């Protein structure tokens, strides 16, 4: 022992501060938020882990390039107001992004500390700073430019639209947001469940915009209640369209219309937007499944599965046709789902639903798959194993295999160019569409993506709209 070289005495390393969470068994039965938030002390400690890199790779990993080391420096010094101001320069919805961004694939995935150790918990710090500000840390409103007299219509009230509305109101334009649903927020409100993103947070972000002067007209389905052309006739100088990718995809297999087979959109809308989890206090009902299958492997599937548990399911199976590695969901969601007891059936595809004489689903027939030759994208394609059919009993099935573009607005807007899948063709640098004075961004351009990408698209479009309004197309 004694002739072994002595280790250099190490500086006491601060470990990544764990986020306190509700216990899995407890939270799997309630709709309260799962992670509870960092304390001020652990936020400061966590921030102190940052190396303040000269060339911060985390910033490159962030789609809107939040000035991460600068904000974390403030946090480490206990200057939370300074921290949130740094974030606000690039990200107007930090309380949302801190909760739902796939940090492991973005900022945290690029953090140098992550090479040997755990990366800085950038998302948790962002969430902490935003929550601190919302809970009374500051009531300050950012300064507004003098009125320009220009009017902008923003269609949809999801993250892309909220970003555009916030950016343009600050630059002195008049902004009106038109939303089809009776509530603003887009997927943040109808899709992502309360236990992951409390709705109060989204409404407080919208309220912030309203305090800045943004007008909000809910219950307005553009394409039906009013068309894009009519918005111009009403005197709007520019229009931003971000209506999301809200068309549910079904599987096209027999029995899909049985009672108890839902699209994830319907299941989550009933539960989240309509608050069916509070039935009969709220009037909208939802099928309560005891044996639940959820089809798909993304965030939407995880949210559906975890909602079903909270609504009283005994068993929830996520059925996914590829393997674990290909699942597109955020790592944290898969982890949370597993902790809560959701079971996974990988390399499995449904073939049909089976029902009783009242048309209520009782089971799903599936097939096993194996990974075959790599396809054009390099991913090994799942192929059916012949004769591997088996039955999964279920009284509720939720189909979460993706979404497409809703043609309601686009089909009523002649001249707006679409790509072959029906999404709006927009310049990736500016959001300009083929129609003069009309911009588009978010999921209706890219297909289902992420909150932060929708916000990034909104930011680019806002810049371009501002240029147009002040200097011409």
């Amino acid at each position: 022992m004694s002739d072994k070289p002595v280790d250099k005495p190490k500086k006491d390393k601060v470990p990544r501060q764990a986020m306190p969470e509700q216990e899995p068994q407890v939270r799997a039965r309630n709709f309260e938020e799962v992670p509870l938030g960092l304390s001020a002390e652990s936020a400061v400690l966590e921030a102190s882990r940052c190396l303040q890199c000269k060339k911060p790779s985390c910033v490159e990993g962030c789609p809107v390039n939040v000035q991460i080391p600068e904000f974390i420096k403030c946090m480490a010094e206990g200057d939370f107001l300074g921290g949130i101001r740094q974030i606000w320069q690039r990200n107007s919805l930090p309380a949302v992004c801190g909760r739902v961004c796939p940090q492991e694939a973005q900022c945290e995935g690029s953090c140098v500390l992550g090479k040997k150790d755990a990366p800085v918990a950038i998302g948790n710090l962002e969430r902490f700073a935003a929550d601190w500000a919302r809970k009374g840390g500051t009531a300050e409103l950012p300064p507004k430019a003098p009125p320009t007299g220009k009017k902008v219509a923003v269609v949809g009230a999801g993250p892309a639209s909220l970003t555009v509305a916030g950016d343009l109101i600050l630059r002195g334009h008049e902004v009106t947001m038109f939303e089809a649903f009776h509530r603003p927020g887009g997927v943040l409100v109808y899709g992502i469940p309360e236990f992951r993103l409390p709705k109060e947070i989204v409404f407080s972000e919208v309220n912030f915009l309203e305090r800045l002067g943004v007008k909000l007209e809910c219950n307005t389905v553009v394409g039906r209640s009013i068309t894009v052309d009519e918005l111009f006739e009403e005197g709007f100088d520019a229009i931003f369209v971000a209506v999301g990718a809200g068309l549910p995809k079904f599987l096209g297999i027999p029995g899909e219309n049985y009672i108890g087979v839902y699209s994830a959109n319907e299941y989550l809308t009933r539960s989240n937007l309509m608050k069916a989890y509070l039935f009969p206090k709220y009037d909208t009902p939802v099928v309560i499944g005891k044996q639940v299958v959820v089809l798909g492997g993304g965030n939407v599937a995880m949210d559906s599965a975890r909602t079903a548990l909270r609504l009283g399911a005994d068993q929830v199976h996520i059925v996914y046709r590829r393997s674990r590695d290909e699942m597109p969901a955020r790592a944290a969601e898969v982890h949370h789902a597993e902790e809560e007891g959701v079971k996974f059936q990988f390399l499995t595809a449904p073939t049909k639903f089976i029902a009783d004489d009242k048309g209520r689903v009782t089971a799903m027939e599936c097939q096993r798959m194996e990974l075959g030759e790599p396809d054009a994208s390099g991913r090994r394609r799942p192929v059916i194993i012949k004769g591997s059919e088996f039955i999964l009993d279920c009284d509720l099935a939720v189909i979460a295999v993706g979404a497409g573009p809703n043609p309601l607005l686009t089909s009523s807007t002649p001249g707006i160019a679409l790509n072959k899948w029906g999404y709006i063709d927009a310049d990736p640098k500016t959001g300009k569409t083929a129609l003069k004075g009309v911009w588009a961004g978010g999921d209706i351009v890219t297909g289902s993506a992420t909150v932060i990408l929708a916000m990034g698209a909104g930011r680019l479009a806002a810049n371009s709209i501002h240029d147009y309004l002040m200097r011409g197309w």
Partner: protein
Amino acid sequence: MYEILNKEVLAQGTVVLNEISAPRIAGKAKPGQFVILKANETGERVPLTMADSDPKRGTITIIYQVVGKSTHMFADMPVGASYQDVIGPLGKATHLEKVGRVACVGGGTGVAVLHPITRGMKEAGNEVIAIIGARNKDLLILEDKMRAASHVLKVCTDDGSYGHHGFVTDVLKGYLTGPEKVDLVVGIGPVPMMKFLTKLTKEYGVKTMVSLNPIMVDGTGMCGCCRVTVGGKTQFACVDGPEFDGHTVDFDELTQRLAAYREDEAKSWARYKEECACRTR
């Protein structure tokens, strides 16, 4: 907020008419389109067809049958009260064109939905035969309006208390062959009536449009709740309809899907009755 400017109670309190202030919708509404209404914060989204609209007054009119919790709650709202949310116009408008002779057949509250279509068919230059029915005389609605909207009006009651004793389909039969044969039938009413009616007109090969009323949530094509099978293909009634070629509709599936929440609906309704009883006590 969408204020109730006018309220009428029809068919012995089983059907209610509301004229509601909704200027944006009134300016756009066309026959066959519907709105979605939500009474208050905890309410559900209820689809109802617009029975009329008046762009000048900025109002729309709905006529609904009082069946469960939501429609009872609507019926309890007095003039001057407001719906929290009204969304529309939704759905495709009826294709109104001159085809010749048209039979507009309505049962129960379906007559309310049928009325603007009947009027539109007449305005489009068609010869319009209207056939309306109800279980008995007291439940019949909009007789005068239907008479004005058509060239010939035939009335039926199941119990014979008024007009022809029997079903609307009995009377319709006379217009499916012979010199008075119609070129198109528009049939709107309870699902069993539409099912029976389309079976009959199919035998005679007369094209028939029906208006479907599956359960809905958003009414804009984003949830798929309203899916119906038409011609072997899944369609979303809120955006692809609500009118479809009746000969290709899977009515049995529609009937089953309409029963999806029967137990919950009963629970909701019982709870509401109890709450009302508490309030009046």
